[in-house]
């Protein structure tokens, strides 16, 4: 057991899988010799060599296309898209190629690959380098979508993603790279499609993802201390497959739902979860299910502005307090 950073957990997860399976290869821009723009892959090139860990040209379509062709023919590629915003320049692979090949071929074509990418705000990079775009992937049938919030989940879900026979989009949160957590020694393998109840509670359910998880936990703690409100906090972890059982089960117990997401307002995963609960858990709900999101605007660059647009523990707390009428 050791405390490692979320950043180092990325390296560890990849290294674990590359050591296990010679078919795992890794490519991306500046990922090999330089160790990645976020230094999340330092040492992989040295450990596994330049044949398995490769720097590419600035050609996101070639990166994802090559990953797909390799996956179709027997390798298990991990491809890095440096910032998740850049998924927009190679979106055809995400939306039209990876997720449809198996279906269109009536099961002939396989596509076991992982796209890992740095998602989310907090670095004052402005509107084109700060987005949370996991909903761009969640909405596409045929993909799996993961976004861990802690170092241990990074390792375990990375392993699960690499071993998964389907295309998995793996969102790492830029503002979590420096965060730390205990990670046991030895191999770690988690399960896609499983949410985690990080904090049990009875007054309401908070569903959060990635950077919003520590914020939701902080809000929950303050709600307990300041208002005696007992929140259940769920880290949804995997958007596809989605652990609706855990979410619906929680709402059946707490009768209230709040989702906390970094996505802009419209059509985020919060809307999906709220819609599922509003339909299937309608009679469990004692009050409106509420989404806490970033407003529907491009992200501003300046620190003081960026800090107020993302859901903060304060805003989460106040929204829940108001929502529960306390």
């Amino acid at each position, binding site marked *: 057991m050791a405390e490692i950073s979320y950043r180092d957990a990325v390296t560890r997860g990849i290294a674990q899988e590359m050591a296990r399976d010679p078919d795992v290869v890794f490519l991306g821009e500046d990922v090999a010799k330089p160790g990645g723009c976020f230094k999340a892959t330092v040492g992989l090139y040295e450990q596994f060599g330049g044949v398995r860990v490769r720097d590419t040209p600035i050609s996101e379509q070639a990166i994802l*296309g090559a*990953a797909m*062709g390799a996956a179709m023919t027997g390798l298990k*590629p991990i491809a890095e898209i440096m910032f998740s915003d850049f998924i927009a320049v190679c979106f055809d692979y995400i939306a039209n190629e990876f997720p449809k090949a*198996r279906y269109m071929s*009536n099961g002939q074509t396989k596509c076991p690959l992982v796209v890992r990418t740095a998602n989310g705000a907090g670095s004052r990079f402005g509107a084109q380098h700060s987005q949370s775009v996991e909903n761009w992937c969640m909405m596409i049938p*045929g993909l799996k979508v993961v976004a861990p919030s802690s170092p241990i989940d990074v390792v375990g879900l990375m392993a699960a993603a690499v071993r998964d026979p389907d295309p998995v989009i793996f969102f790492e949160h830029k503002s979590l790279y420096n965060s730390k957590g205990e990670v046991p020694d030895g191999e770690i393998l988690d399960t896609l499609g499983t949410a985690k109840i990080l904090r049990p509670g009875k007054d309401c359910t908070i569903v959060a993802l990635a950077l919003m998880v520590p914020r939701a936990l902080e809000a929950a703690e303050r709600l307990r201390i300041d208002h005696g409100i007992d929140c259940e906090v769920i880290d949804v972890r995997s958007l596809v497959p989605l652990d609706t059982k855990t979410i619906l089960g929680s709402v059946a117990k707490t009768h209230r739902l709040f989702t906390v997401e970094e996505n802009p307002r419209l059509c985020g995963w919060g809307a999906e979860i709220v819609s599922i609960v509003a339909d299937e858990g309608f009679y469990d709900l004692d009050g409106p299910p509420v989404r806490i999101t970033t407003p529907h605007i491009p992200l501003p660059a300046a620190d003081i502005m960026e800090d107020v647009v993302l859901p903060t523990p304060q805003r989460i707390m106040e929204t829940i307090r108001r929502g529960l009428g306390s």
Partner: protein
Amino acid sequence: MSTAKDRAPGPAGSGLNDDIGEEKRLALYRSQVRLRDAEQRAFDLFLQNLVKGTSHLSLGQEAIAAGFAEAMVKGDLSFCTYRGHAHTLARGVPVEKVLGELMQKDNGLMRGKGGSMHLTSEEHGVMGSYAIIGAHLPIACGAAWRAQYRGDKDVSVCFFGDGTTNIGAFHEALNFAAVWKLPVVFVCENNLYMEYTPIKDVIPIPQPAADRASAYGLERILIDGNDADIVYRTAQKAFARARAGEGPSLIECLTYRHSGHSRADPAKYRPEGELEEWKKHDPVKLYRERLKQFGVTDEVIAEIDASVRKEVDDATEACKAAPSPPLDIITTDVYADGGWAWRN
């Protein structure tokens, strides 16, 4: 363009003992006739309202599909476009499987789930047909990367049209393949048109692919795509280079499609006489003459024609008799577990 040497390696009538040889020449002929007849049949079936959805024929372009496929060996991989029937058939996929898919029958290659634009038969090395222009060029790179990584000796061959040379993925793939020296062969079938607009209207150079090879450090290769011998020899050279670890090739094949872009297109935009001119250079006709020059008898040719005709007829009947796919396959094979569950 190809040189005279490429065009006619032995004097006419000198027998079949040139570099290509009798067996391969007969195979090249059979393949082209098969593509011609199967595609013509697809067109007829469309007129009878039995082919549904869209369809993109390669009538007139058969020498390219046949020439490359005959140069490939088992294990080599084809990456095709929506205009992929010919390439799929040329790798040995039964006509019935292809027509079945076009007719959306349960005996179709993908049982109707993919449709005419997405023919795939991995057992024959047909690694999919892609309907988003350019998407498969990087994918072919990836398959070639796997071969390089594992030391496999197969070549990935990627077919696309003249219009495809203007999309970003073309550029990214060519550069990527060249830098990584991947065993991939890019084949541009220049049939002079995109959907309805002539390629010459949208490029600032005469040849969309060949005139760009140097941008990727590659040799300029421009051949007569209607002469299966030239295609075959060019393919062999490119494959040898790929297998030797010398990297990719970009081959531009000049050709012409006899029909419209897709079933919806009467091809009115073509200048008068253009089609007729090209029909004089019809690949099937040309190759039939070639066989005769090499001394193949009319009887042998007629036998091939007849057996292909029978194959296509039988396939047609089988497809007409085949049932529609069952509806329960609608939700299979979204994920590798065979199902479509996105939730628990």
